[in-house]
């Protein structure tokens, strides 16, 4: 089973929910931090990293001794990543989406693809009793292509095991790359107008993917009841509420887990997992 933890709005508590869920589970699982722009899960679970691989994107390199300046490469490229002017060919690797079109259409076979470094995938184990595997992606500073880094992190998934994914905020391509193929999306929000607005966008994205979802309301008690009313109207189950509490905020600020600061939460996170399992199994039977 794959559970993707997403939010729409940033800073609502995705990582808090993901890391505390991990620290409460008895089952074997794997945690993947797919917020490759700003990964934070490692700050709370102190993994031991044992492996590191590069994420490369193929980009064109033109052999000018073979090039006849026919411009076919420039014509097929929708990203303006290759330009031919007179007897000059320029490539702009930072604009390249690695579709490979230029290399395929070049009649002279003058284009080969070379690796461009865009990020890193690190693997290791979490310091929890089951020694769960951990993987995270880290997009290199100044790069723009998060989805290939996310996809490479997600290659670590093993079919039969439970995988928890900490997704990035938003509703565009990096989020979709982190939710696609999941069996359940756990949406984390806060009960404020910003939280509600971005939640509705996230719910639309989850619906588009046809994945069942449930809600965690974090910092319950601030703001108003609109998120709850919305969840009720949309028939989205509220699976856990975490009240706003300065003790929780202070533990979080130091990189401590909620279940360490307030151990009673361990049972709540176990129940959260049980509820998710029940929803996924029900869907499987249907």
């Amino acid at each position: 089973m794959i559970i993707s933890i997403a939010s729409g709005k940033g800073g609502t508590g995705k990582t808090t929910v993901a890391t505390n869920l991990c620290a409460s589970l008895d089952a074997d699982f794997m945690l993947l931090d797919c917020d490759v722009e700003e990964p934070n899960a490692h700050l709370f679970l102190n993994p031991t990293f044992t492996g590191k691989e590069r994420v490369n994107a193929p980009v064109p390199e033109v052999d000018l001794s073979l090039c006849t300046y026919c411009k076919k490469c420039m014509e097929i490229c929708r990203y303006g990543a290759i330009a031919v002017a007179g007897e000059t060919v320029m490539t702009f690797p930072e604009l390249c989406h690695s579709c490979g079109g230029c290399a395929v259409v070049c009649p002279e076979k003058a284009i080969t693809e070379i690796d461009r470094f865009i990020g890193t995938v690190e693997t290791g184990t979490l310091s929890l009793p089951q020694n769960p595997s951990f993987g995270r992606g880290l997009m290199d500073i100044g790069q723009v292509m998060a989805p290939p880094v996310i996809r490479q992190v997600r290659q670590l998934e093993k079919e039969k095991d439970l995988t928890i994914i900490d997704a990035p905020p938003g509703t565009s391509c990096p989020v979709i790359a982190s939710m696609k193929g999941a069996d359940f999306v756990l949406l984390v929000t806060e009960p404020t107008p910003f939280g509600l607005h971005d939640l509705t966008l996230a719910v639309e994205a989850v619906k588009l993917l046809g994945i069942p979802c449930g809600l965690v309301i974090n910092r319950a008690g601030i703001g108003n009841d609109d998120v709850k009313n919305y969840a009720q109207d949309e028939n989205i189950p509220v699976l856990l509420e975490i009240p706003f509490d300065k003790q929780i905020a202070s533990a979080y600020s130091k990189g401590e887990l909620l279940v360490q600061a307030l151990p009673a939460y361990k049972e709540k996170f176990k129940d959260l997992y049980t509820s998710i399992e029940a929803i996924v199994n029900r869907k499987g039977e249907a």
Partner: protein
Amino acid sequence: MKELVILSGKGGTGKTSLTAAFASLAENMMLCDADVDAADLHLIMDPDIQETHDFAGGYKAEIIPDACTGCGQCMELCRFDAVKPVEGAGIFCIDDLDCEGCGVCADLCPESAIKFEENVCGQWFASSTRFGEMIHARLGIAEDNSGRLVALVRDEARKRVTADHIDLLLTDGPPGIGCPVIASIGHANAVLIVTEPTVSGIHDMERVAQLAAHFKMPAMVCINKYDLNPDQARAIEVIAKEKEMVFVGKLPFDPAFTKAMVQGKSIMETHADSPAAAQIKEIWNRVMEHPAMKMDRLC
């Protein structure tokens, strides 16, 4: 004209609430919401939309079933695994969510069976608000090209700021350090990083500070909710100094921010006498005194 971009790295540190507060303080200013993925500034600004424009952010491929012979070349060529066999039909179809819009399948289909059309994937708006004009946008759900839409709304805002002799463009940036963030900072005067005194806040501030340095963009730092962890707040001040970012101040945790948001107002409108509001004024003055904010950046 001058442009300040509010960033954070980590989401939810208070970019939009602070942008709204600054909008109450600034004169002769225009707003730009560059968080097109999960835009929230309009919830405070209550914009009166004057213009709506479609944003065609790329192309999508579509296989015409009757023309497809099932040769499978498109599936072999597609690097994004967007081409899927239609079960039992011996032909193929394209999954919109996976299609990158590169057009390689369409260009090379031997039967010319693939349509490749421009894809309207969002809208952008020019609005009037009680603080001035605002340019904002909404990217369609699950669309890519958010960086291009950010670039578009900023270009539009910058053009209008210049044409209308407006002094300042205040841009509410997206979280993260990726494509939309990079698109939100080019040619700006400076960025203001809003962080919080948490391990995540610090980690993410350092990543976005590296990004600003990478693009040689002057950066300032302020802390929201500093009293949640004063030790971490001091650590942020030290880091800011080490990285040559001007530290412009810190705000206490104050439920007034949420109360103002619930009312659709900025904290300067609802709680003008609060300690947080006083701090915001000081931060604003320090931001505007930064040498990078003194220079005119023409389009």
